[in-house]
């Protein structure tokens, strides 16, 4: 199996220390986290982690099970890039006199959908959101104009097929154990079971 980019979405209780509990599941296995975002979710009091990494699907599936095993984790999903809508935000700081002089820059920025968030005499901060390649490209474009600082946020992602977490939470809040079980994909492919 080949490595590819996966995005893991984790719904959790809002508990101190949980970030560490999740992070060490990766570091223990020497797996690099490309980006990790922690934020509120659509449900009050429930946290949502978005974690990006490059791994084989088999490894990612195991990671997700280890994450779900944590007491304060409600549910974890993993998705490939085409199953999610995702964005990253980037900020660029450039000397104001450089760009003020060069009208071309303005046009370029418009092309990239960037906008100025701060304009001062000494520097200007631009912001753009998009996929990695887009935000990366703008670095290249701004470098000749004396890019002073660059920063990019972790990925945030929405799962295309998801109906949100409200229904799932109701299920979890019932006393009965959830009926949800990840179907075992090997069941119907017994002859392939042993290609480890």
């Amino acid at each position, binding site marked *: 199996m080949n490595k590819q980019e996966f995005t893991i979405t984790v719904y*959790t*209780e*809002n*508990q*101190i*220390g949980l970030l*560490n*509990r999740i992070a*060490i599941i990766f570091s*223990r296995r020497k797996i690099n986290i490309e980006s990790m975002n922690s934020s509120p979710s659509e449900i009050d*009091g429930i946290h949502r982690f978005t974690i990006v990494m490059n791994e084989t699907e088999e490894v990612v*599936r*195991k990671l997700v*099970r*280890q994450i*779900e*095993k944590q*007491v*304060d*984790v*409600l549910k974890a999903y993993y998705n490939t890039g085409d199953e999610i809508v995702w964005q990253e935000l980037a900020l660029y700081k450039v000397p104001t006199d450089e760009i003020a002089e060069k009208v071309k820059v303005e046009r370029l920025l418009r092309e990239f959908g960037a906008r100025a968030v701060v304009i001062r005499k000494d520097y200007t901060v631009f912001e753009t959101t998009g996929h990695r390649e887009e935000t990366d490209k703008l670095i290249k474009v701004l470098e000749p104009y004396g890019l002073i600082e660059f920063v990019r946020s972790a990925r945030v992602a929405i799962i295309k097929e998801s109906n949100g977490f409200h229904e799932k*939470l109701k299920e*979890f*809040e019932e*006393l009965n*154990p*959830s*009926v949800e*079980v*990840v179907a*075992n994909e*090997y*069941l119907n492919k*017994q002859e392939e*079971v*042993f290609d*480890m």
Partner: protein
Amino acid sequence: MQDTLKQPQKDALLTKTESISGSEAVMRAFVEEGVETIFGYPGGAIMPIYDALYDYQQNLEHILVRHEQGAIHAAQGYARTSGRTGVVFATSGPGATNLVTGLADALIDSTPLVCITGQVFAHLLGTDAFQETDIINITTPCTKWNYQVTDANEIPAVLAKAFFIANSGRPGPVLIDITKNAQVQKFDYSGYEKCNFIRSYRPKPIVRKEYIEQAAQLINEAKKPFVIFGQGVILGKAEKEFKAFIEKAGIPTAWTIMGLSALPSNHPLNVGMLGMHGNYAPNVLTNDCDVLIAVGMRFDDRVTGRLDKYARQAKVIHLDIDPAEIDKNVKTTVPVWGDCKETLPLLTELVQFRNHAAWIQRFKELEQEEIDACIYKELNPTGDELTMGEVIKVLNELTNGEAVLVTDVGQHQMVTCRYAKFIQSKSNITSGGLGTMGFALPAAIGAKFGAPDRTVVAIIGDGGFQMTIQELGTIMQTGINVKLLILNNSFLGMVRQWQELFHSKRYSFVDITSPDFVLVAKGYRIEGQRVADRAGLRDALKAMLEHDGSYLLEVMVGKENNVFPMVEAGTSVSEIRLK
């Protein structure tokens, strides 16, 4: 603090609240949870809790150990013989860090523990205060759950949650760190409510009938089915259900080191132990069976040997309570998620009565090869030196397999697990997953508290005994009756064996000298003797078992004996060597 952890707000008119301290709340929680025994060691940051304990000595027996590692291993031994949650007290800083080995051991061997550590005042957190350590972050990778309490109001609900998590689903250790201000703080206590539900935590995955049906079909069609099982059978209290299953299906059955004693040793379907120093037949035939049924075990690398040559020909059915274990190491054909206490009877109902006589005969034949190549001479040696195996053989004869055997780590552990005979579950206490030397002496003390009516024999190497030798003090002070059997080969035997086999006998720092163990024991007012010859062995073991109270017996065994068979690291289970 999330809402689910708060005490339910009761109608103030109906419920009397009273003002008590956080420490008092800890005591009441223990009483409500039925705790009887605590293993611990006091210190500055946990003094308010010890002060509250002073008034609870009638309800809660506190065992003062000699080192916090001793406390937690004792709590593990207690949990393993009693099936209940072991409870530990330790102070902040060094007291708390001394628990780490035991936490890691309990996590990997799924042992239910609740450890309470004191912590510095909340306002000092992060200031490098005296005896402050970040024990929550230190123990995160080796606890099932941990939590820091900084406000006494949280204590009843947090402890309820701790006990629920520790001993439900796949059990494990929980650590609760309580800052000193929370221990002394008075708060309005409105009673204790046990926890049996946490919305983010599902202890047992729901049983899916279709998987049971598919598993039953595979088993019914199998010509050479093979059952392997681990501690899950014991933790699930499913010994009866398990026996009924294998007996109806007529399947030969092997145990992992953690599964030992869940089935009588002499059960006709019991074909022995799996793994690196397990028996020949179950290892070899793992790679010959057509359906492998794994019950409550986790395919540890010491069991599987080389994974890409492990049971490749077989369809695998895996029964486990922990969904993360399914497909973790060995890919499963049919996953049977759930508590085996529930899944086994469902499976038993659907499997047909079978008698795989010819297949079982194969195990017998290979067993005979193993007897001829290693077992016979280990148990009936002709040389002058005593073997570890013959000591265990005589011990079996004298205890009739009724004793709880607690082993440390090394050759003596493997030999004991290979040759001990059991007739009753929860009789084998050992550090299986972590292989913690120093485990046995404190674990034996705890095992005896957990099963006071049973004979407890700790079998320990000369190296491991010196790792937690200080717990002789705990034996002395409590007057507990445990039998200490040291198998002294004057070496760190297991490491020496590897150096002999794989490092061309370059014995690098495995030659260990020992004190006069009998004399040391005497210093702790524990009777004992040393025996070095065959003629005196039986009487010495008898004297140990019959002595009224703890007893230390040091048996001098051959210095350079090896444990065989052996699945060398990196080889396949079917390449197991007999010598």
